[in-house]
Structure formats: C-alpha cells, structure tokens
C-alpha cells in the first residue's frame, strides 16, 4: 500500500469535514437566529430557514463535485462522461 495514492482523497475528506464544521457555524450563528423555533414561527421565517439549510447542503454537494472533478483531472480517473 502506498499512502501517497491516498493524499488526494484525504484532502477531499478533510475538506468535507471542514465544510461540516464551517456550515455548522453558519447554521447556528446565522440560520437559527433568523426567527423563533419552526413549530411556533411564521411561514416566511420557516421557509427562509429551510431554504438556507438546503442551500448549505447544496453547497457541500457542489464543493464535493468540484473536488471530485479536480481529483479526476489530476489522477486521470476515467469518468462516465469521458
């Protein structure tokens, strides 16, 4: 086993982890104070919170897509679109 083969995937894993930490901060510090708890909040506040939370999920997916594409380019991983 050669560990250097894993460096790229370790970077992707670390970025995925850092995103979870960073998005946690955004969720707790920005999204959560936008209004009262969902079960007592009005509709606009609830929708805004849900949209922003979904946006955090999409951001994670988007960054992983970019990281996966970069990895494939640098290692010449055959992809289904190539």
């Amino acid at each position, binding site marked *: *086993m*050669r*560990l250097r*083969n*894993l460096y*790229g*995937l*370790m970077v*992707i*894993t*670390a970025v*995925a*982890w850092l995103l*979870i*930490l960073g998005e*946690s*901060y955004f*969720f*707790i*510090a920005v999204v*959560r104070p936008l209004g009262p*708890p*969902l*079960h007592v909040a009005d509709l606009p506040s609830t929708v805004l919170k849900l949209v922003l939370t979904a946006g955090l999920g999409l951001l994670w*997916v988007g960054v*992983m*897509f970019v990281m*996966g594409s970069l*990895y*494939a380019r640098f*290692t*010449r*991983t*055959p*992809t*289904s679109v*190539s």
Partner: protein
Amino acid sequence: MAFAVPCILVFALMPGYIRFLSSKGRVTNDAHKPNGTKVPTPAGPLLILAIVAGEAAIYILNESSIPLAAIAVTLVAGGVGFYDDIRGLGGIIKPLLLTVAAVPLILLERVHQSLYSAQLYFPLFGATGTHYIIFAVLIVAAMPVASNAFNMLDAFNGEISGFTAMVSVALIIAVLLRASDFASFDFIRLAAALPLAATALSFYFFNRYPSKIFDGDSGSLVFGALFATLAIIGGVEIAALVAVIPAVLNSYFILSSIKGFVEHKRMAARPTYLGEDGKIHASEGPGAPTTLVKMIVAREPLSERDLVRSMLALTAFACVLSVLTSALTWFP
C-alpha cells in the same frame, strides 16, 4: 457480555455456517479473483443473530428499551437485506423498504421518552433546539441513506467488515466522550454500541482477503442501519457522520456519475476490473460508475489486499477526524 456474546457466536458458528452454505450451493463468484473462485454468501443471517444476541444480553441485564430499539432495527433492515439476497430488490424499492427500519425507533421513543434526544449537537457551536417532528423525518431519511452507503462500499474482500469495525470504534469513542461530559448519561447507550463493533470485528477474520464468506446485503444493510441507530441513540450524529465520510463520498460519486438509483448488480459496467497482472484497474468504458475504489486505483493499479488496506487507511483518517469532532463537541 455485549462484546463477548457476538464474538463467541461468530467464531463458534461461522465455520459450520460456511460449510452449510457451500453444501446448499449458496455461493457466488468472487469478481476480483481469477479462475472463477466461488465464495459462500450471505453471512447476514448469522451476523444478525450475533447482534441480536449481544443486544438481548444487554436487555436481560438492564431491561432498557435501548437494546430493544437496536434489535428491532436490526431485524427490519436484516429482513429487507435477506429478501434482497434471495429474490433481489430494485434500486428504488430497497431504500423505500428501509425507511420502515425507522418506525420501531420512533415508536419506542413515544414510550420511552429519553430513547434519543431530538436535537443535533454541533462541534464548537452548540446544539439545535428540540424538534421532535423534524428529527423523526431525519431518522426516516437516515435509515436508507446509511444502509445504502454501507451497502455501496461492500465490493472487496474485508472492505465492509473492516470499515464497519473501524467506524464502530469511532462511534464508541464518541459516545464515551459524550458520557464523560454528562453526569446523568445512561451507559446502556454505550453498551448498545458494542455488539455492532464485536460482530464486525469478528466477521472481519472470515471476510478479509481471501474471503471465506461474503456478508450479502443482509449484512451490509444491517451494519448501516444499526450504525445510524446507535449514533442517534448515543446523540453523536455529527461525529458518526464524519467517521463515515468515505462511505458518503463513495455513494455521492456513484450517484452523481450514474445519475440515479440503480441496484449495483444491474449497473451497465463495473467501476473496476481484474487485470491480467492480478491487480485491480480502473474501468475506462462509458457507463462505468465512479467509486472511491476506482479513484484510489486511478493513479496506479493495486492488488485487492492493498486496495482494501488503502480504503481502510482512508477510513482510519476519517475516524481520527470523527474523534476530533467529538472532542470539539463535548470539550470545546
């Protein structure tokens, strides 16, 4: 007891069970060996028995609903997996059936109010509010996602058993760190996590290269569903998520490359193939999905043994991040 019972059962019964499966012709091709090597499958029913026995031992000693929840989830996910092993299930129907595994967990919470805490604890920044309905929805979603993530990782000798054993240890450490921060923590939550680690670890000795038996979907789906359940019961969802990042990435790369839910046995092309040099190569054909394993061998073909070691090394890295996450959550 929670650790010893599953270990004893797996080591005592597995050799006879392997002979039983072989005598009944329940064998399958090992796709990454030359000469059409046949391997008995599925080990799932015996793994389910070992986990249920371990959880039952905890219940007999404590009469808590926590092991009951683990047993119920194991039986439901195991039932779905066993049906898939025998008859086969589609790429859509299997995740839908696996949502049923969440039902006993949610129902038992109605009876035993402190089965789980309906909030997420984030590292450094604190916890969300308590939301029973949203949390129940998340549990329903978590069952098929976790089970299928584990299932998609089940392709090479010792991969799923080694992966499950490692992430289970990370889960136990996460629960242990949480327990040390809460004076009133119920240690049955910690005990309930032991049978999964014990079963996966002892199964690894039969499943590692060269495999004497495969777990089948009945094994991998149970591993995934039970891991999610124990993370929820232990209140360590974020640390558990970090530990299984390799499985999450693998599922994400597969789904994004094939653009949909397709049962892996029915994929148009395999992501890797066995070369004439006896090593695993990345497939170059169109329609071959991108998997984590394919990404590992893209730079250089590897023997199956080295490939699984690489995969487990990546898992170990994720487990270290998971422990760090736990430390940042409970001791910021």
